[in-house]
């Protein structure tokens, strides 16, 4: 470094070494402190630097700081906020944890609990998908191209896709239920669950609150299970297998599910707009 009258200036070689990042720490600190107050040296430093490389460095920095969420866009639109994640997690827990605990605590009666609760997974998924309070974009989201049935169906399917395999897995995973009857039962609730969820989806195209319809549909399902228990005066697995996995219940569920989905698609305009004033 050279001195000039009362002030000193950095040599070109010192500046080049600094630019290359090879200046010892103490000397670099001294140089930086000098550069803050010396426009002449700053100007020479700028002239020595590779402008293109500097721009690339700024771009790299901006890329690192401003990088959008790494979540796939589907996940981002479905569970962007903690509220939405909580809603999805609730639906999964309904079928994952509660029936497992019930089965552990009450044995065969736990199966009844599970049959009551398992179809609630898709029902809850659909009802939660309609919750506009959890959408972080509010009314702006309604004016977006994905708004309406596309977004509701996407959110519901994402939650159901996680929750339903868990529900089936819980049934299959418990040792005491392995065998012909539990295997039938493990899948038997899926169609009724789909039918109930489709009814809730359909409710979203009306002025009815999907959450209330979900509660009503779930209560109706629980009532049906209760009727079977009372009629048979038993909670024997084979009786449930005959009743729930039988062609009557499965057939009705399939027809209801198909009819509700078709009607929803026909009435999809109602979901596309704001449902209340």
């Amino acid at each position, binding site marked *: 470094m050279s001195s000039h009258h009362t002030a000193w200036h950095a040599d070109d070689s010192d500046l080049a070494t600094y630019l290359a990042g090879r200046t010892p720490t103490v000397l670099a600190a001294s140089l930086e402190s000098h550069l803050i107050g010396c426009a002449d040296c700053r100007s020479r430093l700028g002239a020595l630097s590779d402008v293109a490389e500097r721009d690339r460095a700024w771009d790299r920095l901006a890329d690192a700081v401003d990088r*959008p969420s790494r979540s796939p*866009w589907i996940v981002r639109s479905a569970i*962007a906020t903690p509220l939405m994640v909580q809603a999805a997690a609730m639906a999964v827990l309904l079928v994952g944890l509660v029936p497992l605990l019930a089965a552990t605590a009450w044995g065969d009666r736990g199966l009844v609990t599970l049959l009551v609760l398992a179809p609630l997974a898709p029902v809850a998924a659909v009802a939660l998908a309609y919750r506009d309070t959890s959408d972080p*974009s509010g*009314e702006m989201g309604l*004016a977006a*191209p994905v708004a309406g049935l596309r977004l509701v169906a996407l959110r519901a399917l994402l939650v159901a896709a996680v929750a339903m395999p868990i529900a089936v897995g819980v049934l299959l995973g418990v040792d005491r239920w392995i065998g012909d009857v539990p295997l039938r039962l493990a899948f038997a609730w899926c169609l009724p669950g789909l039918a109930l969820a489709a009814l809730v989806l359909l409710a979203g195209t009306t002025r009815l609150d999907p959450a209330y319809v979900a509660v009503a549909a779930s209560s109706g399902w629980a009532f049906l299970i209760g009727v079977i228990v009372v009629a048979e005066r038993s909670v024997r697995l084979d009786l449930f297998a005959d009743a729930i996995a039988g062609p009557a219940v499965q057939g009705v569920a399939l027809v209801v599910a198909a009819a509700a989905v078709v009607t929803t698609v026909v009435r999809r305009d109602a979901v596309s707009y704001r449902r209340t004033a």
Partner: protein
Amino acid sequence: MIETTALTKTFGRTHAVDEVTLSTGQGVIGLLGPNGAGKTTLLRMAATVLAPDSGELRLLGLDPTRATERVEIRRRLGYLPQNPGLYPGFTPYDMVDYVAVLKEHTDRAWRQQEARRVLEAVELTDVMHKRIRSLSGGMRQRVALACALVGDPDLLVLDEPANGLDPDQRLRLRSLLSQSSTVLMSTHNISEVSALCQRVYVMFDGRVRFTGTPADLASLAVGRVWEDERQDPQAIRSWLTSTGTYRHLGHPPNGAQVVDPTLDDGYLLLARKEHT
């Protein structure tokens, strides 16, 4: 760009928008009117958020009541609602990115560039990684505006966009909107209409009562405005100005000092007529 024929929307027994017929070209179009006049309901229909009860609505030459055309409109639309529901836990950057996802922009690199562009346009780059809950009301309004600008939409529907903005930011907003293709905006600020809008619609009780340029609106009061040192009880409206004289609206008495009308005069005269 926006055409309506006898467009109607009712809530219960209230006709929020009552057989409104209008046709706008490109440029900035202002909607004026008192609270409850139906401006927000009209804007929400223009933003495809509310379905009309009857009448026809065409946006960008497309029919929003047809599902496929509605999606196409929404792809080319930016909307700033009266009460934007911004998630307080998001940063402005997250918020813009989320809205870009809803606008079908699945490419992350594109969203990154677009988020920077719109946040720079509303001068929020300094705070784009702070939580929205820590931002001022004016900043939140600009976050919502940035969301509306994502994708450089052909049609911007803005409900009181200058809410909460300071004078400097209002100037910036004017500059921003003047670069947009078509803007339909409601406002209570008449000076904004005069500075920004090529055309203005004035609504009362769900109906459009005036259509024209801001100059046309001001000209409604030509020969109907006078100033005097004393208040004239015959005037239909009078108020004390900053110069200490009274400004009057109505039929000027003989010898009155008639002055050139402003946009406020035209609007106030129209409002008075509507309520007498």
